[in-house]
């Protein structure tokens, strides 16, 4: 009974990730995709907050979205798991519900 939260917007542009992190419970998961993948990259002003969230939540990032934006595994914060669309589907089935932070 844990929820998969999805965030598709850049944390620099919109407040979706911030709200998601504020309102998601320990044990839930956060999938970063589309422009949301920037939150998964190293060295940004958001990296510390995302790293802190990993203390009690799983964080995933969509590899095809990273690639489109010129990013690779090297750019991703340690501990964030990279998934493709098949992995996205698995997450949706593994968690009890999906909540989109639009």
């Amino acid at each position, binding site marked *: 009974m844990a929820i998969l939260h999805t965030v598709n917007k850049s944390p620099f542009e919109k407040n979706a990730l911030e709200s998601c992190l504020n*309102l998601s419970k320990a044990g839930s998961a956060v999938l970063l995709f589309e422009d949301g993948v920037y939150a998964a990259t190293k060295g940004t002003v958001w990296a510390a907050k995302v790293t802190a969230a990993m203390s009690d939540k799983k964080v995933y990032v969509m590899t095809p979205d990273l690639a489109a934006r010129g990013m690779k595994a090297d750019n991703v914060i340690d501990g964030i798991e990279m998934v493709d669309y098949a992995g996205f589907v698995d997450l949706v089935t593994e968690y009890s519900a999906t*909540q989109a932070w639009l």
Partner: protein
Amino acid sequence: MEGGEVKKFMYLNRKAPYGTIYALESLEVVLVAAAFDQDVSLAFVDDGVYQLAANQETTPTTGIGMKNFSPTYKALGDYDITKLYVEKESLEERGLTLDNLMALTYEDEDDDWAEKPSIHLVSREELAGVMDEQEVIFSF
């Protein structure tokens, strides 16, 4: 849908009204959903709390010329939609209190039709708990 399964449905509202249509069209879904006898909750977080602001006024002549759909929220009680969760922290960041919102109520048939508030002011912590129990979440 008699005899069917009852699921926990949540409608997540995080956007202000008028600037975009999400608030209005979200409300249209909620009204239809009322006929399906599910366990319905509405969450108003972030700019979503502005959807419930009192005294909304739009006119074609001196106003923005869009339809003022805020009276529809007042009908939710009649449709047995009585769990409107408003996040306290979102109100505070915006300098608002419950007094700035419409007074939304319903008549409780289990309590001699007493009039009760539909808006439930909850902390971030409490709202996170409510969200975590949901089975189907509609975002707009």
